[in-house]
Structure formats: structure tokens, C-alpha cells
């Protein structure tokens, strides 16, 4: 029994997420201040506050649990959450989706909930799997089981379809194999089919890429089995080949989102609307912002989802560059704290776990902020601690609690 509770020894970390969460409640309050009052967004900040309270209580409880316990529950939790995801897919399939971006919200908490839990469960399972290895992964085949562990929930989430959350699973995978000490060329080879998928929009670019990849594999030939090199090439070719059918299988709104990312003016009324309006909101905030609750883009409801996925635009409009930099600095501080915690952790599981959570949050922050300002395509992914969403906030706090709990675990 330690003299100080775990959360206290990580005061910087917990204080940061508390500040972020309070900022989130404030921003959700502001998002509800509209010229034409909307019953949908009006009292949401209170609900978020209640979930924050629950999160804090969760942190106090969970952070006191035995670090060993997380290793014990990792696999059962993973199996259970994947099962629930699968069930959700069946049950949720009956629910009609609304048009456009809103479809993400219409199913609401019910759809997010299993995915949020599954993310943490996947981090637990993956961390446990790699922590049990004697050595860092050295061959691609060493990454096969970890990859499979991630691909199952990822595929289930993709089928919902929820591209944003699926990307978080990708973040988990690469963050954990990175901290497991996987050589970087191996990480790149593992990522290469994804790159091929994107570059397939142009046959010429894709061909150049494949040649470069082959050269890379040739230089790295002594570290790989031949069959692995061939698999990487085949995987890339396959990714390039399915790109077109995959593109065609996307719903029109999904395709439009990707297209308007390249040219928002393409469809300024529908798909491009959100992007244009959120850029206008953030840009018009200027250096100091328009003042708390005073954002005009927000007040006049120009930005859909401004209390959830696009809450960053409200912050950018009302607090300006100072506000956005401060927010990114808070996240930066949080992430650097987590890297430090992983570095000093005394069990391999703790480091892996912390990096897994870091992978989730970092993916969320980068994609969310990036899509709001038009750096990455709109994928519908919330900003951790800030965006409205009870289950997401609660799960983030529980993940933080686990981070705190395992960070100080004795070997």
C-alpha cells in the first residue's frame, strides 16, 4: 500500500485531463447558445458535466485497482467487447441512418458505446500480447497475431460504418508495436498496404511507390523471409487493386467528403458546407477570438455537429489562435507526460498500455483538429474530453484511470 494515491502521483496528467474536460463542458455550453434556441443542444453541458462527475469517480476507483487486475481482465474484456461489437452490428443494422454526416449521431450513444469500450479492451489485449514477448518483434510474422487482434474489432467498426473510430484502432496498433521496439522498416512495411490504398488514385503514382517499396524490401532483404517480402508486395498490389471497388462501395456522402476535402467548392451546399463553415469559423476567430459564447458562425448554427465532432471550430472562433494553441499545448503536454510515464513504467504491459491509449487520443486529436481546419478529410471523430458524448468522456476517463493505475505498478 502506497502512501499516496496513484492519481496524485500523476497530478500533472490528471490535472490536464480535468482542465480539458472542464473546457469541454464550457465549449458545449457555448455550443448551446444559439440565436434560434435549439432544444437539441441547450442543456447538453449539464449532461456532459454529470458524465464528467462519473468519470472523476471512476478515476478515483479504478486508479486504486491492482495493476495486475488489468492484465487478468485483458483477454476476457477483449473477447466480450468484440462480441458486443458483433451483436451491435446485428441489432444496429435495423436502425435507419439519416442522410449525410448526421447519421453518426442519430444512433447516438448506443453505437459509440461498444466501440469505445472495445478500443480500451483492444489496447489491454494488445499490450498484454506484446508484453509477454521476450524480444521485440523482428519479423513481419511476429506482427501477424497483434494485427489480427486489431483487425477484428476494426473490421466490425468499419462495417457500422464508422471510419473515424476504425482509424483509432490503426492508431492503437502502430503506437503499441512502436513501443514494443519493432524496427522502423518493419513498421513501414506493415503500414505500406494502407499507403498503397491511398496512392491508388493515380496509377502512375502507385507504380512509382511500388518500385520504391521493392527497393526498400531489397535493401532490407537480410532481415526478412522471402515469403514476407513477397507478402508485402502482394499486400500492396492487392490494396491497389481493391482501391477502385472499395471507392465504389462507399456511400455517396463518404465519397463526397473525400472529394470536398480536395476541393470544398465542389459541393458548397452539402458535403463541402461543413468544411467551409468550420474553416470560416476558425479563421474568423483571429488571434484573440470573438469571445466566449459570442461566435457568430456558431450562434447562427452554420456548423453542423458543432457540439460534437466540430466543437474545435467553436473554440477556434470564440478563443482565437490563443485558444487553439493553448488547447493543442494541453494535449501536447498530456501526450508528453504519457510518453514519460511509459518510459519510466516498470512493467512492459504498462508502457504498451499507455502507448495504446496515447495512440487512440493522438489519432482523435490530430484527425479531429485536422478535419476542422481542412488538413485531413472529414471522418466524424470526436475530440477527446472536449466533444459532447457521455460514453466517450466516461471511457476516456476510465482509460486515464487505467493509465494512472498501471503507470505506477511494481513489476
Amino acid at each position, binding site marked *: 500500500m502506497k502512501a499516496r494515491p496513484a492519481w496524485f502521483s500523476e497530478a500533472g496528467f490528471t490535472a490536464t485531463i480535468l482542465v480539458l474536460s472542464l473546457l469541454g463542458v464550457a465549449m458545449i455550453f457555448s455550443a448551446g447558445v*444559439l*440565436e*434560434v434556441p435549439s432544444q437539441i443542444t441547450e442543456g447538453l453541458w449539464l449532461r456532459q458535466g454529470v458524465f464528467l462527475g462519473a468519470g472523476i469517480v471512476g478515476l478515483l476507483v479504478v486508479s486504486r485497482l491492482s495493476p495486475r487486475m488489468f492484465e487478468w481482465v485483458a483477454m476476457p474484456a477483449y473477447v466480450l467487447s468484440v462480441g458486443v461489437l458483433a451483436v451491435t452490428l446485428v441489432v444496429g443494422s435495423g436502425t435507419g441512418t439519416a442522410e449525410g454526416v448526421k447519421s453518426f449521431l442519430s444512433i447516438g450513444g448506443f453505437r459509440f458505446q461498444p466501440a469505445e469500450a472495445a478500443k480500451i479492451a483492444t489496447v489491454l489485449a494488445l499490450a498484454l500480447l506484446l508484453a509477454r*514477448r*521476450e*524480444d*521485440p518483434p523482428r519479423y513481419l510474422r511476429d506482427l501477424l497475431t497483434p494485427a489480427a487482434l486489431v483487425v477484428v474489432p476494426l473490421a466490425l467498426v468499419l462495417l457500422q460504418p464508422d471510419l473515424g473510430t476504425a482509424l483509432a484502432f490503426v492508431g492503437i496498433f502502430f503506437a503499441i508495436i*512502436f*513501443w514494443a*521496439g519493432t524496427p522502423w522498416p518493419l513498421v513501414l512495411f506493415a503500414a505500406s498496404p494502407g499507403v498503397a490504398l491511398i496512392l491508388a488514385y493515380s496509377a502512375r503514382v502507385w507504380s512509382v511507390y511500388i518500385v520504391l517499396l521493392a527497393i526498400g524490401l531489397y535493401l532490407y532483404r537480410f532481415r526478412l523471409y522471402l515469403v514476407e517480402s513477397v507478402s508485402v508486395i502482394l499486400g500492396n498490389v492487392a490494396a491497389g487493386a481493391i482501391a477502385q471497388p472499395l471507392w465504389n462501395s462507399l456511400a455517396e456522402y463518404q465519397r463526397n467528403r473525400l472529394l470536398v476535402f480536395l476541393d470544398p467548392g465542389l459541393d458548397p*451546399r452539402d458535403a463541402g458546407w461543413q468544411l467551409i*463553415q468550420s*474553416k*470560416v*469559423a*476558425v*479563421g*474568423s*476567430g*483571429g*488571434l484573440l477570438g470573438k469571445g466566449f459564447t459570442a461566435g*457568430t*458562425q456558431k450562434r*447562427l*448554427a*452554420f*456548423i453542423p455537429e458543432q457540439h460534437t465532432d466540430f466543437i474545435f471550430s467553436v473554440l*477556434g472562433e470564440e478563443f*482565437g*489562435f490563443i485558444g*487553439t*494553441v493553448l488547447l*493543442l499545448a494541453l*494535449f*501536447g503536454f498530456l*501526450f*508528453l507526460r504519457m*510518453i*514519460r510515464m*511509459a*518510459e519510466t*513504467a*516498470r*512493467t*512492459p504491459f*504498462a*508502457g504498451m498500455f499507455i*502507448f495504446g491509449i*496515447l495512440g487512440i487520443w*493522438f489519432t482523435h*486529436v*490530430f484527425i479531429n*483538429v*485536422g478535419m476542422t*481546419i481542412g*488538413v485531413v478529410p472529414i471522418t466524424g471523430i470526436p475530440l477527446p474530453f472536449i466533444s459532447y458524448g457521455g460514453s466517450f468522456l466516461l471511457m476516456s476517463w476510465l482509460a486515464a484511470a487505467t493509465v494512472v493505475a498501471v503507470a505506477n505498478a511494481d*513489476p
Partner: protein
Amino acid sequence: MSRLRPQQRKTLATRARVFVVVPLALLVGVLFRAQVLRSSDWLLQSEENRLRSLVVPAPRGIIRDRAGRVLADNIPGYSVAIVPDQPDSMLSTLRRLREHLVLSGERLEDVTRQIQGRPPRPVLVSVDAPFDAVAALEERRSGFPRLLIQSRPKRRYPARELGAHVLGYVGEINEAELESGDFEGAEPGWIVGRSGIEATYESMLQGKPGTRYVEVDARGRIVGPFGGVSGVAEEPGTDIDLNLDLDLMEWIHHIFPEGMKGSVVALDVETGGVLALYSAPSFDPNVFAGVVSRAEWSRLVNDSESPLYHRAVMGRYPPGSAWKLATAAIALELGVVAPGDRMSTPCQGSFVYGNRIARCWKPEGHGSLDLAGAIQHSCNVYFYQLGLRIGLERLLEFGNRMGFGDQCGIDLPREAGGNFPEGVGYWQRRYDYEPLEGEVLSLAIGQGPNDQTPLKMAQFLVAIARDGSAPAPTLYGGAPAREGWWLDIPPEHLASIREGIHRVTQPGGTAHLSSLEHFDLLGKTSTAESGGGRPAHAWFIGMAGLRGGPPEIVVVALVEFGGSGSEVAAPLVAKAADYYLRGVHGIPRDTIQTLREYLVVGRNTAWAAFRPAG
């Protein structure tokens, strides 16, 4: 992390820090560019996003008569418009609007076409929505997010039919007018003058529409006025005070023979100001205040009575004997006759010229007459000879100089000019023959190719009534006096013409029964052949003033197919002049005015005894 060496762990942690910090720094860089470097662009765009400028129509200037009685003013009306959006959503709003607003098929087509053109500004559905429809729409406001209901002044003509032709009417500007550039700064939905004073003084009456900024939300709903940018207040149009006398118009309407068509013109001798400009039948210009349906329009246009036709300034009628005064004026100006001269051939009922026998209207003849006598008796034989003295060429030249082939220049649109041969080439051009000198016989007595508007005859008479100059008749009291034309005749010669027409209402004159108790009435009857076996047009052109004093008012009456000028038109002129002059000179008005009426009711008529002109 026991399986990783501490050094390896440190390397990984450092790499991880780079992986985390670099993307975040990239985001900060993008934010710096958007929020600091390009902020003003985005700020502008956010202002544009939420601001919509609305055009606030300016109330048109008020039109009043000479006594300040309102002829045209504005009452509150409502316009209904659809704020720009996707054509599909605008059309669906339009569809639902029709549950509350009655729209004609053509209006619907027009609005639909405008919407499909992706208009940059609100599309007007109705410029004059009935109040109950507006109330119903306001109640369902939330169901019509793209609806814009604005109060909008609506034209009203309290004088109704009386003012119709003079005032004209207004209408929504059409595409051709918009493109014509005649209306400075005009935008769709503007109400512009289409006819009458409303058209002539459009630029004065229009005023300047204001601009109001409103804040709208993402769905185009108007949230409220925008505080940041002040709009431009609308400037009401300039008020216009006319020379017209509404009371006189009412009186003329009252005395004008029921069911007959025709017109009465009254001009102020001193200024040329138009005191009355009456045209029957008339119409109610209030039907044009809103949007006129094509059906309503065609009903008015196709009415066999032609109520839209402004007979006083557009109707051209053969002037008949009334034009003999012009012949006399030309002869005096040329000096081919002196007032006391008698013609070489006394009137014996006809006049032989070459192989042609031209008749006088009085078969037994008038005997030998001087100018005043010839005018009094309207003797054709005298005027045949007068015409011959003038000669065809000079008669045409002087007739044109007096503007008989032209317009008077009244401040109304579409005034008709007189039909009068521009020279001897007229016959060559029209009938392909050299006119013989004998043509002058017909012209001298007001026949032949000569048609004049009642207004033109009135303007001519004003010149006779004053010193020979005829200013352009004006309706607008503030209009600068415009020189028309003038007769170069010595005052005593003009007086002899007046002497002639004074005798017309003296005992023995054709219009004696129309003479007045308090005023001298001078005038000339004319019963002009209308052709086609129909009754003649009845003319009386007259002037009146205090006994012994100068003429103050010129009145011309024309009754289409009215028959006898002395019986139908002369009483109209007498009663109109009497009504006006009694008002001017503070004499109580009475409905018993002319000698005939005095005789009918048995009043003392001693005043009607012969009196030489003053």
C-alpha cells in the same frame, strides 16, 4: 519494460516525442496561417455569411391637388418574398405558400422562372399580399424558414376614377424596363409609374429605397436586425402638388352627360396650369396598386368604351368651326384683314370658287359681316374668303407654327399631337396629287385633314385669352413655365376675336342660353361632322372671367357624338367655368348657373340683357 534496454527505451521515447510534437506543430502552423495571417478574409466571409441586405422600399411621393387635397398616397401593404437558397427548397416553399396565398398562373410561372435562375436576392412572390394571408403566414413562421415578409407601402388613389387619367397608375417593374436603364438603380419588385403623372415624374416620386441589414442563421431564417452595420434609411419620394382642382374635377364629373364619352379641359389663363383634365369614361387606378392580373388588364384594355384612353390629351377630333378662330388669328397676324373689313362677297348661303360651290351652314345667308360678326355667326362664306386671302401655303405654315401639327408639351406621357398637313407636300404624299388652292376653303372652316385634341384647342384659346402667347399646359405646380408659341397680333386685334366669341353668348348668339350671371363667357361652338352617319362631335371652346374683366379660365368641352355644340358642350363649359370662378371670387356656388337653368326655375334673368364687350 524490462525486456527493453534503458538506452533503447530512451531512444524510443525521444522518437515518440518527435512523432507527437511534429504533427501538433503542423496543426499550430495551419492554425497560425488561418487565424492570424488570413484571419481578415475569413472574418469577411463570416460577416457575409450572416448578413443579408434587404431592400426597404421607399414610399412614393404624395400627389396633391392645388388645394392640398390628396390625389395619391400610400397605405401599408405587405410583400412576400422567398430568400435565396437551393432552387428545390425555394420551390417547395413556393408550393406551400400557395396554401395561403392566391397566385395567378402567370405569376406562378414568373416566380418559378426567377427561382430557377438562381437569383442572388429574394424573389418577390407577391408585392401586395392580403393582410389575412400575411397574418396566417406569420403564425406559421417556423414552417417557412425562407420566407421574407416585409411591409411595403402600397399606392392608393382616394380620388378614384376622377384622377385616373391624370395621375396614371403604378406597376411592378418588368424585365424590359429593368434592362432599359430608364429607371436608375431599379431592382426587381420596384413599383414604378406606368402612366400619367406617376410616369412623368417617376424619378421625383420614386424616392430612394433604403437598405437594412439583418442577421440570418444557417437556414436562412432572419434572426433579427444586425447591429454592427448600419443600413441606409429609405428616402421617401418628393411630394408633388398639381395645378389640378379636384373640386372642379368632381363638378365636371357631376355635370358631364351620363353615359357619354368625351373630355373637358380647363386651363388657367395666367399660367397655363391645368385646372381640370377630365376624360370619360374612366377607371379606378386602385386596381393597379398591387399586381395586376393579365385578366384584369385585358378587361380594361378590351373594354369597348376604352376607359384607359385619355381623351383629353390623346383623343383627336375634327375641330370644325372652332378652328375658324385659328383662321382669324392667322389672317390678323398676316395683316390680310382688319377687324372691321368686310369680305367682297357677302354671304348668300354659298360661295362659288372656280367650278366649285361651297356652302354656308345657313342657306339664306348672313349678308355682309365684319370679323367679329363672322365669328359670332360662324359664317363659312366669310372664312372661305379669309382663307383665300391667306392662301393654302401660308395657312399651313402658320397653323404648324401654332403647333396644330404637334403636341402641346403637357407634362404627361403619350400626348397625341394634332393631325395637320405639314405643308403642301401632304397631299402629294398622301393622295398623290397637287393640292389646289381650293383646299384652303375646307381648312379655313376647320374641315379637311385636321384633327385636334381637346387640350390643343384649349392651349390655342389661352393664346387668344391673353396676349397671344400660349405656354405649355402644365399639371405640376412646381414645373418651370415653358414657352409654347405665340401669335404676333396687336392686342386690339385679339380683342376683336374675343369680341366675336363674346357675342356667341350674347342675345342672338348660339350659346346665349349658356351665359352666366356673374361672369362673361366667351366661346365658340362647333358641331363637327364625325362621319359614318353618326351624330356629330359637340365642341365648345370657351373662356370666362369677371364681367368686364380679362378671361381667367379657358375651358374646352368635347362630347363624342354629342350632337350640337351649343346644346351639349356649351353648358358644360359654362357650368365648369362658373363653378371655378365662383370659388376664386368668393361667390357662393349654386347648381343653377346658366341662363337656361335660370329660365327653367324662373329666376330673375335681367343680367342676361345684351352688353357690349368690355
